[in-house]
């Protein structure tokens, strides 16, 4: 592998690993805040137990989210020194504000975890609120840098690479910032909610005492409600992001849809794959006119095809599949949450029936699926920008390190990520096995 490919594989792996923990690190605090609020409003202790147990899981995940985030942050300079040189000049602002968000989260997380017994109840709620705020702010700010890579703004560059006329705030609020960062935050909430739903559904699969079943049903209902809402909002915001692609990164949209000829009344290709030989989408379902409508709300919108652009700036064809997977998973999960809640309303609540196994099993899969959707989305966003690191400003080859020692380091970090994954699973299972819900319930009664 040459150094550039190796650097991409290395960084992609680091990021892909971090994203799992970072996403849950944004999603879970929201669930904790909601549970704390319901508990204080309704006085139902089950929600206090939920908040406590999710905090425990969150703390363990944070143990990986923090170091992996540190790794990603520093590796940017190690693997992409050319990129970071421009970043430093133009878009270091969100990075820096992100540090403050990070401080906010770290300070109040320590307070919430290590000082909970010395704090009044309302202050615990404030602490966990700040943790949630810090987490989502970090996500939005870091996404700001990524959106700037997709739609760079706020500076000018001379042919020799000199950067001038910098406007840091314009770079920050680049054209795709609001829509994409919002999408990142909402899908993290969606994933956090589905992750909770997964666990609750899994617990309901086995026979349990009525008291515990009631507890898990409450958790399932609450998480599904949040999941449904967030899935819907993320579908709308995803649609908006696609329109931004149409305006600002037309070749990315063309590659996502496998569209080669520029046309009005462009069809939407669902499924299939882009055949590099014949240059068309094979085995896909075509919905006539739909792409034009999605791109700008009108059927006669002209959508640019790949032939419009020089061949060496085409994104890889596999982004069509990634795009389909992301959108497909999002749609599927939206439907699943709706079906499950409808079932709950008509059969579980009114007739006292239990959830059927097939529905519970589907819900168990929902959390991992949602996480996969996020991963596909990020890979789509970043490989869809190729060959650029900063769209039409800097190529990935220019950005990458010239250092050739990457191979061994890559293996070292692969080992690290494997070790941390295994340990996380071991620790979560060990902790929750030793501290089952029943134990928390007894503690609360005594």
């Amino acid at each position: 592998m040459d150094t550039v490919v190796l650097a991409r594989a290395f960084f992609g792996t680091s990021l892909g690993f971090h994203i799992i923990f970072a996403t849950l690190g944004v999603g879970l605090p929201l669930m904790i805040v909601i549970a704390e609020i319901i508990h204080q409003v309704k006085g139902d202790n089950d929600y206090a137990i939920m908040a406590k147990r999710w905090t425990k899981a969150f703390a363990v995940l944070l143990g990986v989210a923090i170091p992996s985030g540190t790794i990603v942050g520093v590796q940017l300079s190690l693997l992409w020194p050319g990129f970071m040189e421009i970043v430093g000049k133009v878009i270091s602002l969100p990075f820096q504000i992100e540090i403050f968000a990070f401080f906010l989260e770290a300070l109040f997380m320590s307070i919430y975890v290590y000082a909970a017994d010395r704090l009044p109840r309302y202050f615990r709620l404030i602490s966990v609120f700040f943790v949630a705020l810090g987490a989502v702010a970090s996500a939005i700010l870091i996404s700001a840098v990524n959106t700037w890579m997709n739609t760079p703004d706020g500076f000018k560059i001379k042919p020799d690479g000199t950067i001038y006329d910098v406007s840091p705030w314009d770079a920050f609020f680049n054209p795709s910032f609001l829509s994409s960062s919002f999408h990142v935050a909402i899908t993290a909430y969606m994933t956090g909610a589905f992750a909770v739903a997964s666990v609750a559904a899994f617990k309901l699969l086995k026979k349990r005492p009525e008291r515990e079943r009631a507890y898990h049903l409450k958790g399932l209902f609450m998480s599904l409600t949040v999941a449904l809402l967030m899935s819907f909002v993320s579908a709308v915001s995803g649609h908006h992001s696609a329109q931004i692609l149409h305006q600002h990164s037309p070749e990315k949209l063309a590659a996502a849809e496998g569209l080669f000829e520029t046309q009005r009344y462009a069809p939407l290709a669902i499924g299939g794959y882009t055949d590099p030989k014949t240059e068309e989408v094979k085995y896909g379902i075509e919905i006539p006119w739909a792409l034009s409508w999605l791109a700008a709300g009108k059927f006669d919108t002209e959508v640019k095809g790949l032939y419009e652009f020089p061949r060496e700036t085409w994104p890889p064809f596999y982004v069509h599949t990634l795009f389909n997977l992301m959108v497909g998973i999002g749609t599927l999960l939206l439907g699943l949450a709706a079906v499950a809640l409808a079932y709950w309303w008509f059969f579980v609540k009114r007739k006292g029936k239990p959830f059927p196994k097939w529905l519970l099993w589907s819900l168990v899969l929902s959390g991992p699926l949602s996480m996969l959707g996020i991963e596909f989305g990020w890979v789509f966003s970043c490989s869809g920008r190729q060959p650029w690191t900063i769209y039409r400003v800097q190529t990935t080859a220019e950005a990458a390190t010239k250092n050739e020692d990457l191979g061994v380091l890559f293996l070292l970090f692969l080992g690290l990520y494997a070790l941390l994954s295994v340990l996380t699973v071991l620790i979560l299972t060990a902790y929750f096995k030793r501290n089952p819900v029943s134990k928390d319930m007894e503690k609360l009664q005594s």
Partner: protein
Amino acid sequence: MSEEVLAILMMWTFIFIYSIFGSIDFGAGFWAMIYNNHKTMAGRIANRFLSPTWEITNTFLVLLVVAFVGFFPKGAYTLGTVMLVPVSLILFLLAIRSAFMVFSYSVQGYRRTMFIISGISGLLIPSLLIAVLPISQGGFIAVDGDTQSLLLSKLLTSPTLYLYVLFGLTSELYLSSLFLADYARVSKKEDAYRLYRSNAILLGPLTLISALFTLLFITPESRWLIDNLMDQKIWFILSLVAFLIAYFSLWWPKQNRPGIGRPRLTLLATVLQYGLASVGYGLAHLPYIVYPDLTIYEAFTAPETFYSLMIMYIVGLAILAPGFYIFWRLFLKDKRYLQQE
């Protein structure tokens, strides 16, 4: 003061703050390993400090990197290129240490492993971190046209590196002993206080000796630095005075109370000592970030970015100040936390 000088001043301030807190953090990890299950509770005190604070200290390390990229992008380019291997090792060790800190809090079975990992990495990480100083002083970077690379074998066989590491480690252990002595005193654990005090008495002179040797055995490429350091004598003389005050106040009796030494005064005077020496070193290092290839003027960011960063630092720190205050009250002052058994 020019924008570049203001920026490097900010940078040095951050580095100084991190090197103090980092020393205390990693040092506490080391002492917690050494005094695990010690009858004086010295280990438990170190760990009590470490549990809620390591995350904040870690955030500060990220802040350093981000501030450097923002203020001196070209510097980030150079150091990012040449420091790939050492910094990757730091990240690796840091990740394992952080993860075990958190895991051991959830599952008791991991405590022993955590103490060992945190103790050993508490020596290794600072050793790797301080390697940036000899590298920045020149002689260890090969330039070939447009590409720069680290002369790893030259670095690893150079006595300068090891003397810097020795200086770094003795300073780390000295500072953390002083801090933990003070923390033990506030926690009313007199036995632990005496233990950390005697460590500090031993380590104090060692830091001075290793600093002296580091300068004596400096590489020929770094002669320029020695010449510059000579011009900054006054800062080092003041620093030495601060050291003497700090060191002798370890014997200063407490007013109207039994017990020997005033650890709070010692700690503050020692921070001042390192602060003054840092000013001297920093001034002597100017205008270079990496000698002789990179100065602060070449590495500087876009001026517009610099000003918006400065404003955001002021705003951000103002917003966070109450949070830090609450944190300090809860973990460094609250008797309910400090004096638990």
